[in-house]
């Protein structure tokens, strides 16, 4: 017995074709409408796609060598077996109906069910923090580096973008630009750029300046553009990211151009008798990152549960009603932009001072989208989601690199991420660890109530969503 509220698709025809007179029979290409058959079809195609994804790379000489190599047995056979196996699982689940469905529903709701329990959460957080402080010292150098450069940085970036995309519902595709601004601020104030700063600062003290600069950039970008509708905002932010990169490449006198910056100094803390210089060892960077991540988590959690978080939720739900209830929508959107930019700016500074060199080609649109994938995968609007999503998607490829698994190649990472985005949107839009509100919004939208985001079609790109 299916849930009466569940929207089921009604097959186009329920009468067998053969029973009808010839001119009324379903044309052959429409016979494949049965849900299970259609799903099998999709899984078979998926198998081929998987084969391509996990297959060998093209060799640059024979253009079809990659495709050719991928579509050979046993490789193709294994891929097809995997996807058809998936089909079997899904079909069985459907056939066994109720019991299987509630079981799987219970499993998928598990993360959200465990977390709200306050005591469990508090204990878990303390344990996690202890682990985070103690464990990394026991890892080898490679993994410590990964922890900093992959996991740590991207967790920070994901937390920041989560504020923009998750809390305020704004699609920012140029997020990496704030990272770049943070990095260039660091380079500038430590004298690593062709133009000289008014004062040559210790990079550690550049951190607050970089954060402030990134936030200012967020405001400057936001004020003119946040009046725009969702998809236009996305394009404009994309363009902004591009412009930052182009400017960085072409203003050689200012930014060092395509060649990049001079050597940037490491962080150094000389205050109150503490004399500490960060060096090449990744571990101190990790602890610095950890401090900021914890601070950011605390700050953003507080924001989420304050009137500001509620205002953002209202804006996401219904901009018109929010504005009519006294919320200055533009101000809160700009605020989200600026606050989101802050973690990005800090991350940029940290990477700049650790690696000591960068060039404009490091700040690509690919990276902006990558951070988006992390947030979406983990759960839009969910702090634990952003952290876990980023950690998993950054750690896993490194792990698979060291312990190879069937066909996974490091350089194909983005292919997987692209597929993840599509699949997440279709099968689990609320993400790995959904925020409670988001799950409710999506559930309502599926039943036709509301639209689960602030991007309903306005009459023109500059009109707010859903004008009466």
């Amino acid at each position, binding site marked *: 017995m299916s849930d009466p509220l569940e929207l089921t698709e009604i097959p186009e025809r329920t009468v067998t074709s053969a029973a009808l007179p010839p001119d009324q029979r379903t044309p052959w290409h429409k016979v494949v409408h049965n849900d299970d058959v259609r799903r099998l079809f999709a899984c078979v195609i998926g198998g081929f796609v998987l084969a391509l994804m996990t297959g060998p790379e093209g060799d640059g000489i024979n253009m079809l060598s990659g495709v050719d190599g991928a579509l050979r047995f046993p490789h193709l056979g294994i891929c097809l077996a995997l996807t058809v196996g998936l089909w079997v699982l899904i079909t069985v689940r459907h056939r066994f109906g109720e019991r299987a469905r509630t079981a799987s529903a219970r499993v998928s709701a598990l993360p959200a069910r465990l977390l709200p329990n306050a005591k469990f959460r508090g204990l878990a957080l303390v344990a996690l923090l202890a682990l985070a402080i103690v464990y990394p010292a026991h890892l080898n150098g490679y993994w410590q580096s990964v922890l900093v450069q992959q996991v740590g940085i991207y967790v920070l970036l994901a937390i920041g973008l989560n504020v923009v995309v998750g809390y305020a519902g704004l699609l920012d595709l140029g997020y990496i630009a704030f990272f770049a601004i943070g990095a260039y601020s660091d380079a500038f104030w430590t004298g690593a750029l062709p133009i000289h700063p008014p004062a040559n600062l210790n990079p550690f003290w550049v951190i607050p300046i970089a954060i402030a600069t990134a936030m200012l950039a967020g405001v400057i970008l936001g004020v003119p553009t946040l009046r725009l509708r969702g998809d236009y905002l996305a394009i404009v932010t994309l363009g902004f990211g591009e412009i930052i990169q182009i400017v960085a490449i072409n203003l050689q006198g200012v930014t060092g151009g395509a060649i990049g910056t001079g050597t940037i100094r490491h962080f150094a803390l000389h205050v109150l008798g503490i004399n500490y210089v960060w060096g090449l060892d990744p571990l101190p960077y990790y602890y610095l990152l950890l401090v900021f991540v914890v601070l950011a988590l*605390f*700050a953003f959690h*507080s*924001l989420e549960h*304050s*009137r*500001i*978080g*509620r*205002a953002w*939720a*209202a804006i996401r*739900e*219904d901009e*018109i*009603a*929010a*504005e*009519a*209830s*006294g*919320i*200055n*929508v533009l101000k809160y959107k700009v*605020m989200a932009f600026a*606050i989101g930019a802050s973690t990005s700016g800090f991350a940029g500074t940290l990477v700049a001072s650790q690696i000591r060199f960068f060039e404009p080609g490091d700040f690509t649109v690919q990276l902006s989208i990558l951070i988006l994938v992390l947030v979406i995968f983990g759960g839009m609007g969910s702090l634990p989601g952003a952290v876990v999503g980023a950690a998993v998607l950054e750690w896993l490829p490194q792990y698979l690199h060291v312990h190879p698994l069937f066909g996974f190649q490091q350089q194909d990472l983005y292919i997987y991420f692209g597929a993840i985005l599509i699949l997440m949107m279709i099968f689990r839009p609320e993400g790995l660890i959904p925020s409670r*509100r988001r799950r*409710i*919004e999506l559930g*309502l939208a599926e039943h036709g*109530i*509301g639209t*689960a985001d602030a991007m309903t079609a306005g009459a023109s790109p500059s009109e707010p969503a859903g*004008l*009466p």
Partner: protein
Amino acid sequence: MTSAAPLADGLPATSPEADLLVEVEKLTLRFGGLTSLSQVSLTQRRGEILSVIGPNGAGKTSLFNCLTGVYTPQEGRIVFHRRDGRDISVVGVRPHRVNRFGIARTFQTSRLFNALTTFENVKIGVESRSRTGPLGAILHLPHTRREERAANARVRELLEFVGLTHRAATLASSLPYGDRRRLEIARALGTGPELLLLDEPAAGTNPAEKGDLVDLIRRVNRDRGVSVLLIEHDMGLVMSLAERIVVLNFGQVIATGSPAEIQQNPAVIEAYLGAPEAPAEGAGDVAESGEGA
């Protein structure tokens, strides 16, 4: 001393206590070739329940949208006389600022925050007056915590006032229809308005819910001292609530007056029902000639 000059809507100022709340003068709103409002003038007195009626498409919601800053009229003035003495024009002012000035509204189709609870919906209205910024929120400053406690108390009070206390934790989307209307009013009241614009609050409600609504609106007006500007199609409701009525048709004001006057106004009757029937001789002619009219 009464002023000799008549008010914008043609009615003389009847007494020194004609304390004007809103003055709309010659408001004109156009969309491309379509004129939605044409030279609309009306006034509302403080504490009054004024109703705007008219056939569909007459421009009533457009009027609301001009009053709340959603649309900017091409011509005309709208002046809002606040209790603290400030006179503000709300033409072209953004909706959230209009709300700050003291005008709140509900929508024709209830625009609630569906994924939030009843309590949270009202809280959003109340918190719009809060002065807590991101810093205060992050640092959990004492004044932030005080504000939140006060906001919670206000929300509870408002929920009790509209009779939704028992539904405080329910998701707004799960509320029955009549409760949704009341929630929207509660949220609007949370913003502390002097004037409440209600856009067809009774649309789609059953008679029992309607009665409750009338009662609620009266209490809003009398117990909380909030002036009400009401768009409604239900004439029974209008007649029982409104002290004065403004009638719109095709974007123009065709009549203003007390309920009794409006009911007998021929222009109003024509607007709603079409031209009055021809006098008796005409009918006789038809009967005699045996032809269709």
